[in-house]
């Protein structure tokens, strides 16, 4: 099973990214995913977690991820080196940040989002994850955006996702 932990702030769309990844992974059938937010009241700006679990057999463990393959951090004020405690040994942390961070890969996701006139970095971070991990194809990620995001914002998000995926797969 591949597990992804998403960290963001309320309103940044971390859970939307978690959901899009699950939808992308299961799009062709024969594969299974669970996506869920850290449960509780939704408050803009408050730290939120979201989880995506991916597997080739049905995922029955609905508990929160304790050892992730990837931790994706949408806001660098939420990053701390202690997050390594929530990673598998081979796991990696991806952070949206303009500066370097100890123990993590950082990318200026905000820069890419701004290029595409997007107020949030969630689909950029999804693109970075797709490019770095290959857990889903960029094509399936694009299909997930088409299936589960409002039509008027699809085009910009698709462009941002593809740009981010390309950024890291070069």
């Amino acid at each position, binding site marked *: 099973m591949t597990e992804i932990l998403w960290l963001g702030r309320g309103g940044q769309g971390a859970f939307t990214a978690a*959901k899009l990844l*699950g*939808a992308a992974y*299961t799009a062709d*059938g024969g594969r*299974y*995913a*669970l*996506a*869920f*937010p850290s*449960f*509780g*009241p939704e408050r803009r700006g408050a730290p939120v977690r979201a989880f995506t679990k991916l597997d080739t057999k*049905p*995922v*029955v*463990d*609905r*508990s*929160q991820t304790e050892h992730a393959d990837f931790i994706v951090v949408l806001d660098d004020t939420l990053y701390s080196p202690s997050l390594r405690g929530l990673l598998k040994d081979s796991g990696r942390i991806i952070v949206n940040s303009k500066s370097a961070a100890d123990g993590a890969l950082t990318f200026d996701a905000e820069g890419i989002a701004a290029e595409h006139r997007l107020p949030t970095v969630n689909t950029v971070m999804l693109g970075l994850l797709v490019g770095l991990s290959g857990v889903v194809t960029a094509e399936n990620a694009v299909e*997930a955006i088409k*299936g*589960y995001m409002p039509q008027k914002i699809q085009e910009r998000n698709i462009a941002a996702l593809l740009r981010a995926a390309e950024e890291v797969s070069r």
Partner: protein
Amino acid sequence: MKKFLSGNEAFAEGIRLARPEVISAYPITPQTIVVERLSEMVEDGSLTAEYVHVESEHSALSCAIGASAAGARAFTATSSQGLLYMAECLYYAAGGRFPIVMMNADRSTALPWNIYGDQRDSLSQLDSGWIQAYAENAQEALDLALMSYRIAEDKRVSTPFMANLDGFVLTHTYETVDIPTREQADSFLPPYETDNRIDFENPRNMAFSAGPDTNYIFKFKEHEGVLAAREVIAETEAAFAETFGRLYTGLTESYLTDDADYIIVTLGSIAGLCRETADKLRKNGVKAGVVRIRYMRPFPNEEIADILRNAKAYAVLEKDVSFGNEGTVFTNVNSALKKAGVEVRGSNYIGGLGGRNISAADIEKIYTDIANGAHGVEFIGIGGGDNG
């Protein structure tokens, strides 16, 4: 068509396919999404129903009762304090034999105030006369929504149906769900027809009083109606499998229980992790099994006794406690064994209260404990590192 949906959304899809004519709605976390989706469906025309905003849960169920008494298929949904607030009406709906379907998002009850999932809300209402089902995943939730009306409306049953989904862990978790077509659903579930309705051409007495001379007859009939659901559930699931290709297994679902020494009895969304843990223990030579109770009413007395008969020990894992006694599911399971003359050592594990996580390690410890002779009632986690 397959879609990536939450438990609430999947249940709403099932209700859309069941064509309720009246939906009464009052939102409460974690149920809100189901009534929001249904309001969108009514708005966009994919569901034709009278959508009634009411001022409380008491009114939500009263409205559904009125609609059902007019001969309409009615739906409402609630959770936690909302269920308790409408408790008075639960008994009216059941006693009036109105086959309303209600989704309950299982959630903790106050105080301390808490919005997270446990099953103390619905299990406190076992005696209200409703059929009670517990789903494990979003697909089962959708399928229950469709099957529920066929079971509730059967003339042998005529009993309201409460479909329970674990709050957040099921209601807010997204997974792939197969949504049947409108044609399939319509062929499976015919429109509601009943004589138990207000009809000016054929006036009849409804919702009346019954004194000591006749009251017990009504209560006996009500009991028979819920008991009859057992057979109707089996028939409905057979017809469902024929139409949709998914087979459900009646009041319980067993996993590796045939030769099991140690069996966990549980209900709802935690069952999957129990099965995975049983698999793991089997690799170490421990004969572990799981039985998931799908229906608390009617209660699977015979099934439970048959499944546990040859075990060395069992544990009931539940998100509920009846203060001053034990978990209510444990009480029911023990009664089933006693009636069947089955003597197996049993223990009760209370977990997941107020949404607390139940981990694979917790479940493994239950199996280890009962293999080592544990018996009694234990609160998972109490005495651990982070509490008293």
